[in-house]
Each structure stands twice: as structure tokens, then as C-alpha cells.
């Protein structure tokens, strides 16, 4: 093992020492074995595994003298190679010897594979690499044109916009209670006082409702207002009321003692 080149071979060091001190420089026992095999300067197909094993064991033995703390995988490989050596030294034909031959062939095959991969890596590294040795066009030319002239319109979007606008405008409007156009008691009092003086006889209270009443609700409101006004005036004696039957028509006629405050004037009403 005199001409073993160190794997990274940049410094001229005594090869043996180099190997001993640079175990860490190898990528594991297989790497070292391959390096030793390359040192045999032989075709890997005709490699002497026995010689290789002896070299490996010598290196490890030498290394242990210097550094006791060798990595476990170096020692595992050494133990296995010791076993292999013992088999390879047996006379040919023995069963154990054949076992050794087979193991040696497996080792040789592993070394060939690793060597092939190493050479493949070198083959790749020797190729002109894109971005290292050869270059593509340095400046991109973007021939894709973006046309933003068209509008993205859809009916759901239109409706969402409409609802948003209406809700916002609606929320902003101030609440104003709707003006109720109902016939008030005050209205009824005025009307009743005005008309009852001309009454010759009993008349239905409904005759004193105003003419223009739209909805049934307004009609009933006016009727109740007029009844209330009638009751008020009857209390003062200005009119008389009578109802002959439950749910029958309410009749009204001029009273005998007109109340002094009736009819109430438009402005001078005491209860505004």
C-alpha cells in the first residue's frame, strides 16, 4: 500500500500516514476499500479481495494505535473482513471456503457499483452544465399580453350592488311616523255640535261621520270618536243618546239642557 493516493490528493503526504490520519476523509469503510482497490491498479473485475482485506485490516490496526476511538462502522467492517479472510484462506472446495467466495463476490460487486456511481458523477460533472458552463437567454421576453379592457359583469354582482345601495340609503333616512288620518274626538265634537242643533228627531249616530272615509279602519276609528264625543255631550245634557238593543243602532237627538261649553269653538277648546 505504498502508492495509495489520498482521495482528495492535493498535498504530497507520506501515503501510509496520510491514510491513517485521514480516515475521517473517507465516506465510510466502503469508500476506503474502494480507494485501496484502486490502489491495486487492477480491473475491479479481477480484484484480489484477500489482498484488499489485508490492507484494510492493516489500516484499521494502524489507526487504532494512534486513535482508540475509531468510528463503529470501521470496526464492524473490520470484524466482517476478518471473518471473510478466515474463509478465503481455507483450501478450495470446503463449504466454508465457498461461503467466503460468495461473500467476496458480493463485496466486489458493491465496490464495482460504488465505483460506477463515482464515475457517473464524474461523467455528469464533466458535462457542460446549464448555469455553470452554458447559459440560456439571460433576459426573458414576455410575449404574453394582458388585456384588461373587458369587464367582469354578472347579475349577482349587479343585485348585490343594488341591495347595498338601497340598504345604505334606507338606513340613512330618518324615521318619521306616518301621519295618521283618523277622525279624532275633537273633530267629532265639532261636527256633532254643529249638526245636532238641526236635528228634529232621533237619528243614527253614523250619520254624523265625515263623508270621506277610506279604509274600514278609518271608518271604525271615526265611529268610536263620534261615540265618545256623543257621550261627552250627553253628559253635559246637550244631546241624548239611546240604544234599543245590544249591537243595535245608536240613536242621537238634541238635548234639553244645552251645556254652556258646547259647542266648543275651534280655538277655544280647553282640552287641546
Amino acid at each position, binding site marked *: 500500500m505504498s502508492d495509495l493516493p489520498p482521495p482528495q490528493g492535493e498535498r504530497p503526504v507520506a501515503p501510509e500516514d496520510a491514510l491513517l490520519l485521514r480516515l475521517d476523509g473517507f465516506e465510510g469503510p466502503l469508500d476506503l476499500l474502494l480507494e485501496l482497490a484502486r490502489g491495486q491498479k487492477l480491473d475491479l473485475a479481477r480484484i484480489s479481495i484477500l489482498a484488499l482485506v489485508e490492507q484494510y485490516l492493516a489500516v484499521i490496526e494502524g489507526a487504532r494505535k494512534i486513535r482508540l476511538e475509531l468510528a463503529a462502522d470501521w470496526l464492524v467492517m473490520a470484524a466482517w473482513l476478518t471473518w471473510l479472510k478466515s474463509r478465503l484462506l481455507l483450501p478450495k472446495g470446503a463449504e466454508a471456503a465457498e461461503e467466503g467466495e460468495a461473500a467476496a463476490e458480493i463485496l466486489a460487486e458493491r465496490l464495482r457499483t460504488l465505483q460506477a456511481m463515482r464515475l457517473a458523477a464524474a461523467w455528469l460533472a464533466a458535462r457542460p452544465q446549464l448555469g455553470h458552463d452554458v*447559459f440560456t*437567454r439571460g433576459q426573458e421576453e414576455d410575449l*404574453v399580453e394582458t388585456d*384588461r379592457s*373587458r*369587464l367582469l359583469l354578472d347579475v349577482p354582482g349587479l343585485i348585490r*350592488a*343594488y*341591495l347595498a345601495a338601497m340598504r*345604505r340609503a334606507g338606513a340613512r333616512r330618518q324615521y318619521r311616523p306616518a301621519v295618521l288620518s283618523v277622525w279624532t274626538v275633537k273633530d267629532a265634537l265639532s261636527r256633532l255640535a254643529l249638526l245636532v242643533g238641526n236635528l228634529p228627531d232621533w237619528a243614527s249616530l253614523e250619520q254624523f261621520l265625515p263623508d270621506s272615509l277610506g279604509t274600514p279602519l278609518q271608518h271604525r276609528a271615526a265611529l268610536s270618536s263620534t261615540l265618545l264625543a256623543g257621550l261627552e255631550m250627553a253628559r253635559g245634557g246637550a244631546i241624548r243618546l239611546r240604544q234599543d238593543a245590544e249591537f243595535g243602532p245608536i240613536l242621537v237627538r238634541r238635548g234639553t239642557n244645552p251645556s254652556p261649553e258646547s259647542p266648543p269653538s275651534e280655538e277655544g277648546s280647553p282640552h287641546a
Partner: protein
Amino acid sequence: MPDPSSPDSPGEPPAEALLRLAEAMVFAAPAPVTPRQLTQLLPETADADAVLAALRARYEGRGVALVEIAGGWQFRTAPDLAARLRRVVQVPRRLPRVAMETLAIIAYHQPVTRPEIEELRGAALGQGTLDQLLEAGLVAPRGRKETPGRPTLWGTTPAFLSQFALQQLRDLPRREDLLVDPAPLDPTPPPEPPPA
């Protein structure tokens, strides 16, 4: 191949090796290559301007042209072919919110005047918004309202229908179906604007 370091005789065309080098450099450079940059790459005796001129002449009429951009040189696809190679990608844009709301109000209330739109939206309407809709051909004037000032009435166009894939305006959902009672729907009052 001629040695690229051999000096060119004055007046003679630049050596092929110099052209190759300039060609590769301009091709691979990430930005236009100035004659000054090229000079640093070429042998001292070489004339960068002459090399670039010869290179440009070589690409005359080809699918790729050597063009001068911002004081530097770069290869560009020949303009007549760039047009053929160009792919147009449609990226439609959305209308701004205000324009969409205005369009919706015009669609549902047409013919409608600008003051009426403002009343309905509860906000003033910038002229730009109406211009956007006019430019897109979505709305058009529909005569004038016979009220003081005779304001223009606005309505949607046939382009509006086709853009929204509608056969007719009646295909829009009915207003009554949309707005059961818009104002009380939103019980929370709008937040007070912060004091300016």
C-alpha cells in the same frame, strides 16, 4: 478557429471568434450589454463597437435581431414575428363599487335622472362614475325629464343586456322580490362618521 486574442487589423471585419464571444455574452447577459462591458470581455485590441456592428449585420433579416436599448445591446425577437408569437390573455376587470351600484339603480329605475340616482343612493354621484358607465357602453341618455332644468334621463343599453347575458330587462329579478322592506331590514343605524 482564429485566436480571439489576435488583434484585428484596422478596417478589416472582426474575427469570427470575437463575434462568437460577443454573441454568447449578449445572449446570456441578464441586461443589455454596453460596449464598455463587452470591451472588458474582449481582447484589449478588439473594437467592441465594430464587433457589435458586425453582429447586428449578421442578424439582419433573421428571426432574432440585435437591438440597442438604453445604451446597451440585446437580442430581441424580430418585431414582425413577435406580433405573431404574442399571446393575448384576457383578464377582465371589475367595475368599482360605486359604478356598479349606480348601474344597478339605473337598471332598476330607468329612465332616471342623476338627482334621482343621488337620492336613491343617498350620496352624491361623481361625474367620473357616470363616465365609466358611458365609456363601457352600459348606459345611455334616454331624453330629458320635463321638469325644471330638464335633467337628462338615463337608461341601460343593449350592450348592458349582452354583458350581463340577459335577453331583456325583465330577466332581472323583480325589485319587489329583492327588497321586501329594505329600510327596516337593517336595524343597526349606520355608524356616525368620525369627526373630521
